[in-house]
């Protein structure tokens, strides 16, 4: 891949990401020019998102229904499904993600050019869902940064559309005065893009899976 991250930078100064630098401040302050420019670029970006579908399971069926005529993603500027990461804006992970596919989605995310966003569709992509076992990633936010989580098992097309509208709302609130906005969160020297304890915390069992019986 050729991508290395000798000194990863944080998205916010709350020591969220590896090597967080608390002293980082924005170099430009919002003014009349930047806000008007923000309005224009955000309007253009939010209304012409090209999704990169990463469908692995039943959520992909709902995603297809969302893209088809009845629910019609094209109404929100998503006319073109981008099956090439180089021409994509938003990665939609629809379905569970096994550890075997983790390097694949990570590489697709690294191949996508900025600006880029991601949607985690469904319970399994967001948390591991019912698959709290040896083979499944417990939430794709341990692999790539996630902007919008869509709950459901699988979510109805309306749910995904609502998530997309939320993402558009988020995009319309972005500003170029935010230095951290287009930060690449690359896999760091530790082999993870989050601190190891954060991955463990995100992957902790919750809900009913706390009570599931374990063998051995």
């Amino acid at each position, binding site marked *: 891949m050729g991508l290395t991250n000798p000194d990863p930078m944080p998205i916010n100064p709350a020591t969220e990401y590896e090597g967080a630098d608390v002293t980082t401040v924005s170099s430009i302050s919002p003014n009349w020019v930047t806000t008007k420019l923000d309005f224009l670029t955000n309007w253009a970006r939010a209304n012409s998102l090209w999704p990169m579908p990463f469908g692995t399971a039943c959520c992909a069926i709902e995603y297809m229904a969302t893209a088809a005529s009845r629910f019609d993603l094209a109404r929100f500027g998503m006319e073109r499904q981008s099956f090439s990461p180089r021409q994509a804006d938003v990665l939609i992970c629809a379905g569970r993600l096994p*550890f*075997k596919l983790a*390097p694949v989605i990570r590489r697709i995310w690294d191949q996508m050019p900025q600006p880029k966003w991601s949607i985690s569709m469904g319970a399994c992509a967001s948390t591991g869902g019912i698959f709290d076992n040896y083979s499944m990633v417990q939430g794709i936010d341990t692999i790539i940064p996630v902007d919008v989580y869509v709950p459901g098992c699988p979510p109805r097309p309306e749910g995904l559309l609502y998530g997309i509208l939320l993402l558009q709302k988020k995009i319309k609130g972005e500003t170029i005065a935010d230095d951290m906005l287009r930060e690449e969160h690359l*896999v760091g020297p530790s082999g993870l893009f989050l601190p*190891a304890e954060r991955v463990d915390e995100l992957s902790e069992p919750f809900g009913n899976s706390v009570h599931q019986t374990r*063998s051995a």
Partner: protein
Amino acid sequence: MGSEWRRARGCLVSTVSPSVAALRAEFGGAVQRSLVSCGDTVVYVAPERAHDVLAWLRDTPAQNFNYLTDVTAVDYRDPGLPLEVVYQLRSLPRRADLRVKAALDKAAPLEIRSVYDLWRGADWLEREVYDMFGVTFLGHPDLRRILMWETYAEGYPLRKEFPLRGHFSRAEQTRQALAANPEAHYSLEELSIAESYDELPADMRERLARGERGFLK
């Protein structure tokens, strides 16, 4: 037709398959016990004779079990019970089924002779059993993991002593997964038909030799 069809379906009858008596006559003590479960006859054979029994079942005209439906294994929660390797056989011309089990003592190395030489379909089935249970199939041409990646280091996931969430922490599992090279999982040789060239039908070999692609009538 009627009774044979019902026996083939299995669900309507609970009689022992006649193959069991034939097996006992042929192999004697190597056939340990047999039972009928939900209409399916199960035969337990000694693991060191399992290959001979399966070869006999395939090659004897009166048995003619020419199709290996599945190879799998069962690990029981009771640690004293052996691990069973299960062969599900099907005779396509006779429309008959037979399940052959070989119990492997867990104190000894889990080894059994491969049936790849009898049914080529056993290739991936035995690889899956190796991947999930750690049974070594002696004589298998390419025994490596098939579902988990080849560098998977946590053990054999379907063993009863394997914890549901794996041995390593989630961070370590994620780190190892991200360190994997996705292209390393499949070799070009695995995806090509070059090795099986000699086994292809003659007309297909001829078309391949001419460099043609696609299906010709």
